[in-house]
Protein backbone atom coordinates (compact mmCIF):
# COMPACT_ATOMS: atom_id res chain seq x y z
CA UNK A 1 0.00 0.00 0.00
CA UNK A 2 1.10 3.47 -0.77
CA UNK A 3 1.68 5.94 1.96
CA UNK A 4 -1.28 8.10 2.74
CA UNK A 5 -0.82 11.68 1.73
CA UNK A 6 -0.48 13.75 4.83
CA UNK A 7 -1.39 17.05 3.35
CA UNK A 8 -4.60 17.09 1.37
CA UNK A 9 -3.71 20.33 -0.36
CA UNK A 10 -5.76 21.19 -3.44
CA UNK A 11 -3.44 20.91 -6.37
CA UNK A 12 -3.29 24.00 -8.50
CA UNK A 13 -1.37 24.13 -11.74
CA UNK A 14 2.07 25.61 -11.58
CA UNK A 15 2.32 29.22 -12.75
CA UNK A 16 4.99 28.26 -15.28
CA UNK A 17 2.67 25.85 -17.05
CA UNK A 18 -0.13 28.41 -16.94
CA UNK A 19 2.16 30.93 -18.57
CA UNK A 20 3.12 28.46 -21.29
CA UNK A 21 -0.52 27.63 -22.00
CA UNK A 22 -1.42 31.31 -22.24
CA UNK A 23 1.52 31.92 -24.55
CA UNK A 24 0.41 29.01 -26.71
CA UNK A 25 -3.10 30.44 -26.89
CA UNK A 26 -1.76 33.83 -27.91
CA UNK A 27 0.38 32.14 -30.55
CA UNK A 28 -2.62 30.32 -32.00
CA UNK A 29 -4.49 33.60 -31.99
CA UNK A 30 -1.67 35.34 -33.85
CA UNK A 31 -1.44 32.64 -36.46
CA UNK A 32 -5.18 32.98 -37.03
CA UNK A 33 -5.35 36.73 -37.24
CA UNK A 34 -1.97 37.72 -38.62
CA UNK A 35 -2.50 36.84 -42.30
CA UNK A 36 -5.50 39.13 -42.47
CA UNK A 37 -3.63 41.82 -40.52
CA UNK A 38 -0.68 41.54 -42.89
CA UNK A 39 -2.98 41.97 -45.87
CA UNK A 40 -4.50 45.02 -44.18
CA UNK A 41 -1.26 46.81 -43.31
CA UNK A 42 0.21 46.12 -46.72
CA UNK A 43 -2.86 47.47 -48.46
CA UNK A 44 -2.64 50.82 -46.64
CA UNK A 45 1.14 51.23 -46.76
CA UNK A 46 2.79 53.70 -49.09
CA UNK A 47 3.16 52.07 -52.53
CA UNK A 48 6.96 52.18 -52.52
CA UNK A 49 7.11 50.00 -49.39
CA UNK A 50 4.21 47.80 -50.36
CA UNK A 51 5.89 46.91 -53.63
CA UNK A 52 8.82 45.41 -51.68
CA UNK A 53 6.31 43.48 -49.55
CA UNK A 54 8.47 43.97 -46.46
CA UNK A 55 5.83 45.40 -44.15
CA UNK A 56 5.41 43.15 -41.16
CA UNK A 57 4.29 44.86 -37.98
CA UNK A 58 2.88 48.27 -38.79
CA UNK A 59 2.00 49.99 -42.04
CA UNK A 60 4.97 51.83 -43.52
CA UNK A 61 3.85 55.19 -44.70
CA UNK A 62 0.19 55.60 -45.38
CA UNK A 63 -1.73 55.64 -48.61
CA UNK A 64 -5.25 54.82 -49.65
CA UNK A 65 -4.40 54.98 -53.34
CA UNK A 66 -5.15 51.30 -53.83
CA UNK A 67 -8.62 51.78 -52.40
CA UNK A 68 -9.16 54.92 -54.43
CA UNK A 69 -8.48 52.91 -57.55
CA UNK A 70 -10.78 50.14 -56.45
CA UNK A 71 -13.80 52.31 -55.89
CA UNK A 72 -13.49 53.52 -59.47
CA UNK A 73 -13.80 50.00 -60.82
CA UNK A 74 -17.32 49.66 -62.12
CA UNK A 75 -16.96 45.93 -62.73
CA UNK A 76 -16.36 45.37 -59.04
CA UNK A 77 -19.43 47.37 -58.09
CA UNK A 78 -21.48 45.39 -60.54
CA UNK A 79 -20.26 42.16 -58.95
CA UNK A 80 -20.92 43.60 -55.49
CA UNK A 81 -24.48 44.47 -56.50
CA UNK A 82 -25.02 40.99 -57.94
CA UNK A 83 -23.87 39.39 -54.71
CA UNK A 84 -26.15 41.60 -52.64
CA UNK A 85 -29.06 40.74 -54.92
CA UNK A 86 -28.41 37.00 -54.67
CA UNK A 87 -27.87 37.12 -50.93
CA UNK A 88 -30.99 39.13 -50.13
CA UNK A 89 -33.26 37.16 -52.46
CA UNK A 90 -31.98 33.75 -51.37
CA UNK A 91 -32.18 34.57 -47.68
CA UNK A 92 -35.72 35.94 -47.87
CA UNK A 93 -36.92 32.94 -49.87
CA UNK A 94 -35.02 30.55 -47.61
CA UNK A 95 -36.94 31.72 -44.56
CA UNK A 96 -40.26 31.41 -46.38
CA UNK A 97 -39.57 27.94 -47.76
CA UNK A 98 -38.38 26.67 -44.38
CA UNK A 99 -41.48 27.89 -42.61
CA UNK A 100 -43.82 26.59 -45.31
CA UNK A 101 -42.62 23.01 -44.92
CA UNK A 102 -41.65 22.92 -41.26
CA UNK A 103 -44.95 24.27 -39.97
CA UNK A 104 -47.31 21.67 -41.49
CA UNK A 105 -45.03 18.90 -40.23
CA UNK A 106 -45.86 19.85 -36.65
CA UNK A 107 -49.46 18.74 -37.18
CA UNK A 108 -49.88 15.26 -35.79
CA UNK A 109 -52.93 14.78 -37.96
CA UNK A 110 -51.12 15.54 -41.19
CA UNK A 111 -51.90 12.58 -43.41
CA UNK A 112 -48.89 10.79 -44.84
CA UNK A 113 -46.45 12.58 -42.54
CA UNK A 114 -44.19 9.56 -42.61
CA UNK A 115 -43.90 9.74 -46.40
CA UNK A 116 -43.24 13.46 -46.34
CA UNK A 117 -40.39 12.88 -43.89
CA UNK A 118 -38.96 10.21 -46.14
CA UNK A 119 -39.30 12.48 -49.15
CA UNK A 120 -37.24 15.06 -47.25
CA UNK A 121 -34.62 12.67 -45.92
CA UNK A 122 -33.65 10.92 -49.16
CA UNK A 123 -31.99 13.98 -50.77
CA UNK A 124 -29.88 14.44 -47.64
CA UNK A 125 -28.03 11.22 -48.41
CA UNK A 126 -28.25 10.96 -52.17
CA UNK A 127 -27.65 13.54 -54.83
CA UNK A 128 -27.25 13.41 -58.56
CA UNK A 129 -23.95 15.22 -58.44
CA UNK A 130 -22.43 18.06 -60.39
CA UNK A 131 -23.06 16.94 -63.96
CA UNK A 132 -26.77 16.02 -63.81
CA UNK A 133 -27.42 19.22 -61.84
CA UNK A 134 -25.63 21.21 -64.51
CA UNK A 135 -27.61 19.55 -67.31
CA UNK A 136 -30.83 20.20 -65.40
CA UNK A 137 -30.03 23.90 -65.05
CA UNK A 138 -29.30 24.01 -68.77
CA UNK A 139 -32.53 22.22 -69.64
CA UNK A 140 -34.54 24.59 -67.46
CA UNK A 141 -33.04 27.52 -69.32
CA UNK A 142 -31.39 28.86 -66.17
CA UNK A 143 -27.87 28.61 -67.56
CA UNK A 144 -26.44 32.12 -67.68
CA UNK A 145 -29.43 33.54 -65.85
CA UNK A 146 -29.19 35.25 -62.45
CA UNK A 147 -32.07 33.04 -61.35
CA UNK A 148 -29.64 30.11 -61.37
CA UNK A 149 -28.10 31.70 -58.27
CA UNK A 150 -31.39 32.10 -56.47
CA UNK A 151 -33.91 29.36 -57.23
CA UNK A 152 -31.79 26.23 -56.66
CA UNK A 153 -30.32 27.79 -53.51
CA UNK A 154 -33.49 29.17 -51.95
CA UNK A 155 -34.39 26.07 -49.96
CA UNK A 156 -32.46 23.68 -47.76
CA UNK A 157 -33.73 20.46 -46.33
CA UNK A 158 -31.26 20.75 -43.50
CA UNK A 159 -32.74 24.13 -42.54
CA UNK A 160 -36.26 22.75 -42.82
CA UNK A 161 -35.33 20.07 -40.32
CA UNK A 162 -33.79 22.62 -37.93
CA UNK A 163 -36.92 24.73 -38.23
CA UNK A 164 -39.17 21.73 -37.66
CA UNK A 165 -37.26 20.84 -34.51
CA UNK A 166 -37.79 24.35 -33.21
CA UNK A 167 -41.50 24.40 -34.09
CA UNK A 168 -41.98 21.07 -32.36
CA UNK A 169 -40.70 22.60 -29.14
CA UNK A 170 -43.62 25.05 -29.14
CA UNK A 171 -46.34 23.55 -26.95
CA UNK A 172 -49.23 22.21 -28.92
CA UNK A 173 -51.62 23.65 -26.36
CA UNK A 174 -50.92 27.07 -27.80
CA UNK A 175 -52.09 25.95 -31.20
CA UNK A 176 -55.16 24.19 -29.88
CA UNK A 177 -56.11 27.30 -27.93
CA UNK A 178 -55.78 29.43 -31.06
CA UNK A 179 -57.84 26.89 -32.97
CA UNK A 180 -60.65 27.10 -30.44
CA UNK A 181 -60.56 30.85 -30.86
CA UNK A 182 -61.30 30.25 -34.52
CA UNK A 183 -57.80 30.61 -35.96
CA UNK A 184 -57.17 28.89 -39.29
CA UNK A 185 -54.00 27.15 -40.36
CA UNK A 186 -52.40 30.30 -41.75
CA UNK A 187 -53.49 32.55 -38.92
CA UNK A 188 -52.04 30.21 -36.33
CA UNK A 189 -48.77 30.25 -38.24
CA UNK A 190 -48.53 34.02 -38.46
CA UNK A 191 -49.96 34.86 -35.05
CA UNK A 192 -48.72 32.05 -32.84
CA UNK A 193 -45.69 30.37 -34.42
CA UNK A 194 -43.82 33.12 -36.23
CA UNK A 195 -43.73 35.65 -33.36
CA UNK A 196 -41.89 33.19 -31.11
CA UNK A 197 -39.57 31.88 -33.85
CA UNK A 198 -37.24 34.83 -34.18
CA UNK A 199 -34.19 33.00 -32.76
CA UNK A 200 -34.32 30.15 -35.27
CA UNK A 201 -35.14 32.51 -38.14
CA UNK A 202 -32.07 34.54 -37.21
CA UNK A 203 -29.88 31.43 -37.15
CA UNK A 204 -31.05 30.30 -40.57
CA UNK A 205 -30.80 33.81 -42.02
CA UNK A 206 -27.25 34.29 -40.79
CA UNK A 207 -26.09 30.94 -42.16
CA UNK A 208 -27.72 31.65 -45.50
CA UNK A 209 -26.28 35.16 -45.75
CA UNK A 210 -22.72 34.08 -45.06
CA UNK A 211 -23.01 31.00 -47.25
CA UNK A 212 -24.38 32.95 -50.17
CA UNK A 213 -21.96 35.84 -49.76
CA UNK A 214 -19.03 33.46 -49.94
CA UNK A 215 -20.32 30.99 -52.52
CA UNK A 216 -18.72 30.87 -55.93
CA UNK A 217 -18.71 27.36 -57.38
CA UNK A 218 -22.32 27.27 -58.60
CA UNK A 219 -21.76 30.66 -60.18
CA UNK A 220 -18.62 29.35 -61.89
CA UNK A 221 -20.60 26.47 -63.35
CA UNK A 222 -23.86 28.24 -64.20
CA UNK A 223 -22.83 31.78 -65.11
CA UNK A 224 -20.50 31.94 -68.10
CA UNK A 225 -20.70 35.69 -68.68
CA UNK A 226 -19.19 38.19 -66.31
CA UNK A 227 -22.10 40.63 -66.11
CA UNK A 228 -24.14 38.48 -63.72
CA UNK A 229 -21.23 36.98 -61.83
CA UNK A 230 -21.05 37.53 -58.07
CA UNK A 231 -18.25 39.18 -56.21
CA UNK A 232 -16.47 35.92 -55.40
CA UNK A 233 -16.01 35.07 -59.06
CA UNK A 234 -14.72 38.56 -59.75
CA UNK A 235 -12.23 38.01 -56.94
CA UNK A 236 -11.31 34.62 -58.29
CA UNK A 237 -10.39 36.11 -61.64
CA UNK A 238 -8.06 38.57 -59.99
CA UNK A 239 -6.71 36.70 -56.97
CA UNK A 240 -6.51 33.13 -58.16
CA UNK A 241 -6.32 32.86 -61.92
CA UNK A 242 -2.78 33.91 -62.57
CA UNK A 243 -3.41 33.81 -66.30
CA UNK A 244 -4.61 37.37 -66.15
CA UNK A 245 -2.85 40.25 -64.48
CA UNK A 246 -4.70 42.85 -62.48
CA UNK A 247 -3.81 45.42 -65.09
CA UNK A 248 -5.55 43.44 -67.80
CA UNK A 249 -8.78 43.44 -65.89
CA UNK A 250 -8.70 47.15 -65.20
CA UNK A 251 -9.51 49.50 -68.01
CA UNK A 252 -6.58 51.24 -69.76
CA UNK A 253 -6.90 54.59 -67.96
CA UNK A 254 -6.90 52.89 -64.60
CA UNK A 255 -3.93 50.77 -65.57
CA UNK A 256 -2.06 53.93 -66.52
CA UNK A 257 -3.08 55.50 -63.23
CA UNK A 258 -1.75 52.48 -61.43
CA UNK A 259 1.63 52.81 -63.08
CA UNK A 260 1.72 56.52 -62.31
CA UNK A 261 1.00 55.93 -58.65
CA UNK A 262 3.51 53.06 -58.57
CA UNK A 263 0.87 50.74 -57.18
CA UNK A 264 1.89 47.12 -57.30
CA UNK A 265 -0.50 44.39 -58.36
CA UNK A 266 -0.13 42.75 -54.97
CA UNK A 267 -1.16 45.87 -53.12
CA UNK A 268 -4.24 46.26 -55.25
CA UNK A 269 -5.12 42.61 -54.64
CA UNK A 270 -4.73 43.07 -50.91
CA UNK A 271 -6.87 46.17 -50.93
CA UNK A 272 -9.48 44.17 -52.80
CA UNK A 273 -9.37 41.39 -50.21
CA UNK A 274 -9.91 43.85 -47.38
CA UNK A 275 -12.56 45.80 -49.22
CA UNK A 276 -14.66 42.77 -50.12
CA UNK A 277 -14.27 41.03 -46.78
CA UNK A 278 -15.16 44.11 -44.75
CA UNK A 279 -18.91 43.46 -44.54
CA UNK A 280 -18.33 40.00 -43.15
CA UNK A 281 -15.37 40.92 -40.93
CA UNK A 282 -17.23 43.80 -39.33
CA UNK A 283 -20.40 41.91 -38.68
CA UNK A 284 -19.33 38.40 -37.74
CA UNK A 285 -18.46 39.20 -34.11
CA UNK A 286 -22.07 40.31 -33.69
CA UNK A 287 -23.72 37.33 -35.28
CA UNK A 288 -21.28 34.66 -34.21
CA UNK A 289 -23.67 33.76 -31.38
CA UNK A 290 -26.17 32.63 -34.02
CA UNK A 291 -23.52 30.48 -35.59
CA UNK A 292 -22.75 28.89 -32.26
CA UNK A 293 -26.47 28.31 -31.77
CA UNK A 294 -26.70 26.76 -35.23
CA UNK A 295 -23.92 24.31 -34.42
CA UNK A 296 -25.73 23.30 -31.23
CA UNK A 297 -29.06 22.81 -32.99
CA UNK A 298 -27.39 20.81 -35.72
CA UNK A 299 -25.63 18.55 -33.26
CA UNK A 300 -28.88 17.77 -31.49
CA UNK A 301 -30.26 16.49 -34.73
CA UNK A 302 -27.34 14.22 -35.43
Amino acid at each position, binding site marked *: MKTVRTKNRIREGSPAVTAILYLLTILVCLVT*VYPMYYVLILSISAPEYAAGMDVYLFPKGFSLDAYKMLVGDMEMWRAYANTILYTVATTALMLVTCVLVAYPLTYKRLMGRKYVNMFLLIPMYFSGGMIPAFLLITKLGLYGSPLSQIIPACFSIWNIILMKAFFSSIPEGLREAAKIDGGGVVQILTRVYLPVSKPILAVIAVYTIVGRWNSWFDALVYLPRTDWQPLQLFLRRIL*VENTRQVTEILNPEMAAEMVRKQLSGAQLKYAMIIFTSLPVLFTYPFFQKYFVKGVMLGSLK*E
Partner: protein
Amino acid sequence: MAKKKKRPTTPAVIRENIQLYLLMLPVFILIVIFCYGPMFGLVIAFQDYMPGSPFFGESVDWMGLRHFQRFIQGKYFGRLITNTLVLSGLNLLFGFTAPILFALLIDQVKRIRFKKLVQTASYMPYFISTVVVAGMVLSFIDKGGMVTRFLTLFGLPNQNWREQASAFPAIYTVTNVWKGFGFGSILYISAITSIDQSQYESARIDGANRGQQCWYITLPGIKNIIAINLIMAIGGILGTNSDLILLLYTPATYDVADVIGTYTYRLGIQGGQYSYTAAAGLFMSAIGFTLTYIANKVSNRMTGYGLW
Protein backbone atom coordinates in the same frame (compact mmCIF):
# COMPACT_ATOMS: atom_id res chain seq x y z
CA MET B 1 -51.15 -6.20 -32.50
CA ALA B 2 -53.50 -3.76 -30.85
CA LYS B 3 -54.69 -1.14 -33.21
CA LYS B 4 -54.29 2.43 -32.09
CA LYS B 5 -57.58 4.14 -31.76
CA LYS B 6 -57.77 6.57 -34.64
CA ARG B 7 -59.57 9.83 -34.50
CA PRO B 8 -62.21 9.97 -37.18
CA THR B 9 -61.30 11.75 -40.38
CA THR B 10 -63.81 14.54 -40.33
CA PRO B 11 -64.29 17.02 -43.18
CA ALA B 12 -62.60 19.61 -40.98
CA VAL B 13 -59.49 17.46 -40.75
CA ILE B 14 -59.47 16.94 -44.49
CA ARG B 15 -59.80 20.64 -45.09
CA GLU B 16 -56.95 21.28 -42.70
CA ASN B 17 -54.83 18.70 -44.51
CA ILE B 18 -55.50 20.27 -47.87
CA GLN B 19 -54.44 23.65 -46.54
CA LEU B 20 -51.29 22.20 -45.03
CA TYR B 21 -50.34 20.45 -48.24
CA LEU B 22 -50.98 23.61 -50.23
CA LEU B 23 -48.47 25.37 -47.99
CA MET B 24 -45.86 22.71 -48.63
CA LEU B 25 -46.54 22.32 -52.34
CA PRO B 26 -44.25 25.08 -53.72
CA VAL B 27 -41.24 23.73 -51.85
CA PHE B 28 -42.11 20.15 -52.80
CA ILE B 29 -41.97 21.19 -56.43
CA LEU B 30 -38.55 22.76 -55.87
CA ILE B 31 -37.31 19.63 -54.12
CA VAL B 32 -38.62 17.35 -56.86
CA ILE B 33 -36.95 19.43 -59.55
CA PHE B 34 -33.65 20.30 -57.93
CA CYS B 35 -33.01 17.30 -55.67
CA TYR B 36 -34.77 14.39 -57.34
CA GLY B 37 -34.33 15.69 -60.89
CA PRO B 38 -30.53 15.26 -60.90
CA MET B 39 -30.89 11.80 -59.34
CA PHE B 40 -32.92 10.68 -62.33
CA GLY B 41 -30.53 12.57 -64.54
CA LEU B 42 -27.93 10.02 -63.50
CA VAL B 43 -29.30 7.71 -66.20
CA ILE B 44 -26.94 9.54 -68.53
CA ALA B 45 -24.10 7.63 -66.83
CA PHE B 46 -25.37 4.58 -68.70
CA GLN B 47 -25.82 6.27 -72.07
CA ASP B 48 -23.94 8.38 -74.54
CA TYR B 49 -25.64 11.62 -73.75
CA MET B 50 -25.49 14.55 -76.13
CA PRO B 51 -26.60 17.98 -74.96
CA GLY B 52 -30.14 18.69 -76.02
CA SER B 53 -31.17 15.10 -76.56
CA PRO B 54 -33.82 13.42 -74.39
CA PHE B 55 -32.96 11.07 -71.53
CA PHE B 56 -35.25 8.30 -72.78
CA GLY B 57 -36.54 7.16 -76.11
CA GLU B 58 -35.31 5.52 -79.26
CA SER B 59 -32.51 7.96 -79.96
CA VAL B 60 -30.69 7.08 -76.74
CA ASP B 61 -27.44 5.12 -77.07
CA TRP B 62 -27.37 2.84 -74.09
CA MET B 63 -23.86 2.08 -73.00
CA GLY B 64 -24.44 -0.18 -70.03
CA LEU B 65 -21.48 -0.01 -67.67
CA ARG B 66 -18.92 0.88 -70.31
CA HIS B 67 -18.30 4.39 -68.90
CA PHE B 68 -17.69 2.91 -65.46
CA GLN B 69 -15.31 0.40 -66.95
CA ARG B 70 -13.43 3.08 -68.83
CA PHE B 71 -13.16 5.17 -65.66
CA ILE B 72 -11.92 2.34 -63.46
CA GLN B 73 -9.44 1.09 -66.03
CA GLY B 74 -8.38 4.58 -67.07
CA LYS B 75 -4.96 5.90 -66.15
CA TYR B 76 -6.36 8.63 -63.91
CA PHE B 77 -8.35 6.33 -61.65
CA GLY B 78 -5.40 5.37 -59.48
CA ARG B 79 -4.29 8.97 -59.25
CA LEU B 80 -7.72 10.18 -58.18
CA ILE B 81 -8.07 7.52 -55.50
CA THR B 82 -4.56 8.09 -54.16
CA ASN B 83 -4.94 11.86 -54.08
CA THR B 84 -8.32 11.65 -52.42
CA LEU B 85 -7.03 9.29 -49.76
CA VAL B 86 -3.85 11.29 -49.12
CA LEU B 87 -5.58 14.67 -48.90
CA SER B 88 -8.49 13.35 -46.84
CA GLY B 89 -6.12 11.36 -44.67
CA LEU B 90 -4.05 14.45 -43.90
CA ASN B 91 -7.22 16.35 -43.23
CA LEU B 92 -8.38 13.64 -40.86
CA LEU B 93 -5.04 13.60 -39.09
CA PHE B 94 -4.76 17.38 -38.62
CA GLY B 95 -8.11 18.92 -39.47
CA PHE B 96 -9.90 16.56 -37.15
CA THR B 97 -7.56 16.82 -34.19
CA ALA B 98 -6.87 20.56 -34.31
CA PRO B 99 -10.33 21.60 -33.04
CA ILE B 100 -10.08 19.12 -30.17
CA LEU B 101 -6.62 20.32 -29.15
CA PHE B 102 -7.73 23.92 -29.43
CA ALA B 103 -10.80 23.23 -27.29
CA LEU B 104 -8.60 21.60 -24.64
CA LEU B 105 -6.18 24.51 -24.75
CA ILE B 106 -8.83 27.18 -24.48
CA ASP B 107 -10.40 25.34 -21.57
CA GLN B 108 -7.23 26.09 -19.63
CA VAL B 109 -7.73 29.81 -20.14
CA LYS B 110 -9.64 30.99 -17.13
CA ARG B 111 -9.89 34.69 -17.92
CA ILE B 112 -13.33 34.96 -19.48
CA ARG B 113 -12.71 38.15 -21.47
CA PHE B 114 -9.52 36.81 -22.97
CA LYS B 115 -11.15 33.47 -23.69
CA LYS B 116 -14.03 35.13 -25.55
CA LEU B 117 -11.59 37.22 -27.54
CA VAL B 118 -9.49 34.23 -28.57
CA GLN B 119 -12.59 32.28 -29.56
CA THR B 120 -13.94 35.12 -31.64
CA ALA B 121 -10.59 35.43 -33.37
CA SER B 122 -10.49 31.71 -34.03
CA TYR B 123 -13.81 31.81 -35.91
CA MET B 124 -12.64 34.57 -38.22
CA PRO B 125 -11.14 32.42 -40.99
CA TYR B 126 -14.37 30.48 -41.24
CA PHE B 127 -16.19 33.63 -42.29
CA ILE B 128 -13.71 34.61 -44.96
CA SER B 129 -14.64 33.19 -48.33
CA THR B 130 -12.71 30.29 -49.79
CA VAL B 131 -11.78 32.43 -52.79
CA VAL B 132 -10.23 35.10 -50.60
CA VAL B 133 -8.45 32.53 -48.46
CA ALA B 134 -7.05 30.87 -51.58
CA GLY B 135 -6.05 34.27 -52.95
CA MET B 136 -4.20 35.11 -49.76
CA VAL B 137 -2.47 31.76 -49.63
CA LEU B 138 -1.40 31.98 -53.26
CA SER B 139 0.08 35.39 -52.74
CA PHE B 140 1.88 34.32 -49.56
CA ILE B 141 3.47 31.30 -51.21
CA ASP B 142 4.41 33.14 -54.37
CA LYS B 143 7.99 34.11 -55.03
CA GLY B 144 8.78 36.87 -52.54
CA GLY B 145 5.54 36.24 -50.64
CA MET B 146 5.35 36.34 -46.88
CA VAL B 147 5.45 32.60 -46.28
CA THR B 148 8.06 31.97 -48.95
CA ARG B 149 10.33 34.54 -47.32
CA PHE B 150 9.80 32.99 -43.95
CA LEU B 151 10.76 29.60 -45.39
CA THR B 152 13.97 31.00 -46.88
CA LEU B 153 15.13 31.47 -43.29
CA PHE B 154 15.28 27.68 -43.14
CA GLY B 155 17.28 27.46 -46.33
CA LEU B 156 14.36 26.74 -48.65
CA PRO B 157 14.43 28.36 -52.08
CA ASN B 158 12.61 31.56 -52.91
CA GLN B 159 10.17 30.20 -55.46
CA ASN B 160 6.50 30.03 -56.30
CA TRP B 161 5.42 27.13 -54.16
CA ARG B 162 2.12 26.86 -56.01
CA GLU B 163 3.95 25.16 -58.86
CA GLN B 164 5.70 22.64 -56.57
CA ALA B 165 3.74 19.40 -56.60
CA SER B 166 5.47 18.12 -53.46
CA ALA B 167 4.28 21.11 -51.47
CA PHE B 168 0.63 20.88 -52.43
CA PRO B 169 -0.61 18.48 -49.74
CA ALA B 170 0.95 20.65 -47.04
CA ILE B 171 -0.45 23.86 -48.47
CA TYR B 172 -3.90 22.33 -48.76
CA THR B 173 -3.86 20.86 -45.27
CA VAL B 174 -2.57 23.98 -43.54
CA THR B 175 -5.17 26.12 -45.31
CA ASN B 176 -7.96 23.75 -44.37
CA VAL B 177 -6.90 23.57 -40.75
CA TRP B 178 -6.46 27.33 -40.53
CA LYS B 179 -9.90 27.94 -41.97
CA GLY B 180 -11.79 25.38 -39.94
CA PHE B 181 -10.23 24.73 -36.54
CA GLY B 182 -11.96 27.56 -34.66
CA PHE B 183 -15.39 26.80 -35.97
CA GLY B 184 -14.87 23.08 -35.52
CA SER B 185 -14.03 23.61 -31.87
CA ILE B 186 -17.41 25.16 -30.99
CA LEU B 187 -19.05 21.84 -30.27
CA TYR B 188 -16.15 20.55 -28.18
CA ILE B 189 -15.87 23.76 -26.16
CA SER B 190 -19.55 23.70 -25.30
CA ALA B 191 -19.35 20.02 -24.39
CA ILE B 192 -16.41 20.76 -22.09
CA THR B 193 -18.26 23.57 -20.32
CA SER B 194 -21.13 21.22 -19.59
CA ILE B 195 -18.87 18.81 -17.70
CA ASP B 196 -19.63 18.86 -14.00
CA GLN B 197 -17.09 21.18 -12.37
CA SER B 198 -17.12 19.31 -9.08
CA GLN B 199 -15.31 16.45 -10.81
CA TYR B 200 -12.35 18.73 -11.37
CA GLU B 201 -12.44 19.94 -7.78
CA SER B 202 -12.34 16.48 -6.34
CA ALA B 203 -9.63 15.48 -8.79
CA ARG B 204 -7.56 18.46 -7.69
CA ILE B 205 -8.05 17.55 -4.07
CA ASP B 206 -6.79 14.08 -4.95
CA GLY B 207 -3.73 15.73 -6.44
CA ALA B 208 -4.43 15.31 -10.14
CA ASN B 209 -2.38 17.65 -12.27
CA ARG B 210 -3.62 19.44 -15.35
CA GLY B 211 -2.66 16.70 -17.73
CA GLN B 212 -4.37 14.06 -15.62
CA GLN B 213 -7.53 16.15 -15.27
CA CYS B 214 -7.59 16.55 -19.01
CA TRP B 215 -6.98 12.87 -19.65
CA TYR B 216 -9.32 11.44 -17.03
CA ILE B 217 -12.16 13.98 -16.94
CA THR B 218 -12.26 16.29 -19.97
CA LEU B 219 -11.53 13.75 -22.69
CA PRO B 220 -13.95 11.12 -21.37
CA GLY B 221 -16.51 13.91 -21.10
CA ILE B 222 -16.33 14.68 -24.81
CA LYS B 223 -15.49 11.22 -26.10
CA ASN B 224 -18.95 10.64 -27.55
CA ILE B 225 -18.77 13.75 -29.68
CA ILE B 226 -15.25 12.86 -30.76
CA ALA B 227 -16.40 9.36 -31.70
CA ILE B 228 -19.33 10.58 -33.78
CA ASN B 229 -17.27 13.20 -35.54
CA LEU B 230 -14.46 10.76 -36.19
CA ILE B 231 -16.74 8.11 -37.63
CA MET B 232 -18.51 10.64 -39.80
CA ALA B 233 -15.16 11.97 -40.98
CA ILE B 234 -14.04 8.47 -41.92
CA GLY B 235 -17.33 7.95 -43.71
CA GLY B 236 -16.82 11.13 -45.67
CA ILE B 237 -13.21 10.40 -46.54
CA LEU B 238 -13.91 10.35 -50.27
CA GLY B 239 -15.61 13.71 -50.19
CA THR B 240 -12.62 15.99 -50.33
CA ASN B 241 -13.05 19.72 -50.28
CA SER B 242 -12.72 20.13 -54.03
CA ASP B 243 -13.70 23.81 -53.77
CA LEU B 244 -10.37 24.71 -52.23
CA ILE B 245 -8.40 22.37 -54.49
CA LEU B 246 -9.97 23.89 -57.58
CA LEU B 247 -8.71 27.28 -56.44
CA LEU B 248 -5.24 26.22 -55.37
CA TYR B 249 -4.10 23.73 -57.96
CA THR B 250 -2.42 24.31 -61.32
CA PRO B 251 -1.60 21.91 -64.17
CA ALA B 252 1.81 21.55 -62.53
CA THR B 253 0.22 20.04 -59.43
CA TYR B 254 -2.58 17.96 -61.00
CA ASP B 255 -0.58 14.85 -60.24
CA VAL B 256 -1.04 15.25 -56.51
CA ALA B 257 -4.06 17.54 -56.32
CA ASP B 258 -6.62 16.16 -58.74
CA VAL B 259 -9.63 14.61 -56.99
CA ILE B 260 -12.99 13.46 -58.26
CA GLY B 261 -14.65 16.88 -57.93
CA THR B 262 -11.95 18.71 -59.87
CA TYR B 263 -11.69 15.92 -62.44
CA THR B 264 -15.45 16.01 -63.02
CA TYR B 265 -15.35 19.77 -63.37
CA ARG B 266 -12.55 19.75 -65.93
CA LEU B 267 -13.78 16.87 -68.07
CA GLY B 268 -17.50 17.34 -67.60
CA ILE B 269 -18.33 21.01 -67.27
CA GLN B 270 -15.36 22.30 -69.26
CA GLY B 271 -14.82 19.32 -71.57
CA GLY B 272 -18.42 18.33 -72.20
CA GLN B 273 -17.92 14.60 -71.46
CA TYR B 274 -21.18 14.49 -69.53
CA SER B 275 -21.92 10.78 -69.53
CA TYR B 276 -18.41 9.71 -68.64
CA THR B 277 -18.01 12.15 -65.75
CA ALA B 278 -21.50 11.40 -64.48
CA ALA B 279 -20.48 7.74 -64.32
CA ALA B 280 -17.24 8.63 -62.55
CA GLY B 281 -19.12 10.79 -60.04
CA LEU B 282 -21.73 8.11 -59.47
CA PHE B 283 -19.08 5.48 -58.87
CA MET B 284 -17.28 7.61 -56.29
CA SER B 285 -20.44 8.62 -54.45
CA ALA B 286 -21.55 4.99 -54.34
CA ILE B 287 -18.32 4.11 -52.54
CA GLY B 288 -18.70 7.21 -50.38
CA PHE B 289 -22.20 6.25 -49.42
CA THR B 290 -21.15 2.72 -48.56
CA LEU B 291 -18.44 4.12 -46.30
CA THR B 292 -20.89 6.47 -44.58
CA TYR B 293 -23.29 3.59 -44.14
CA ILE B 294 -20.66 1.37 -42.55
CA ALA B 295 -19.40 4.23 -40.40
CA ASN B 296 -22.92 4.91 -39.23
CA LYS B 297 -23.45 1.26 -38.35
CA VAL B 298 -20.23 1.27 -36.35
CA SER B 299 -21.20 4.50 -34.65
CA ASN B 300 -24.59 3.16 -33.69
CA ARG B 301 -23.05 0.05 -32.23
CA MET B 302 -20.23 1.78 -30.37
CA THR B 303 -21.76 5.02 -29.15
CA GLY B 304 -25.46 4.56 -29.67
CA TYR B 305 -25.56 7.64 -31.86
CA GLY B 306 -25.75 7.84 -35.60
CA LEU B 307 -27.18 9.70 -38.53
CA TRP B 308 -30.08 7.30 -38.83
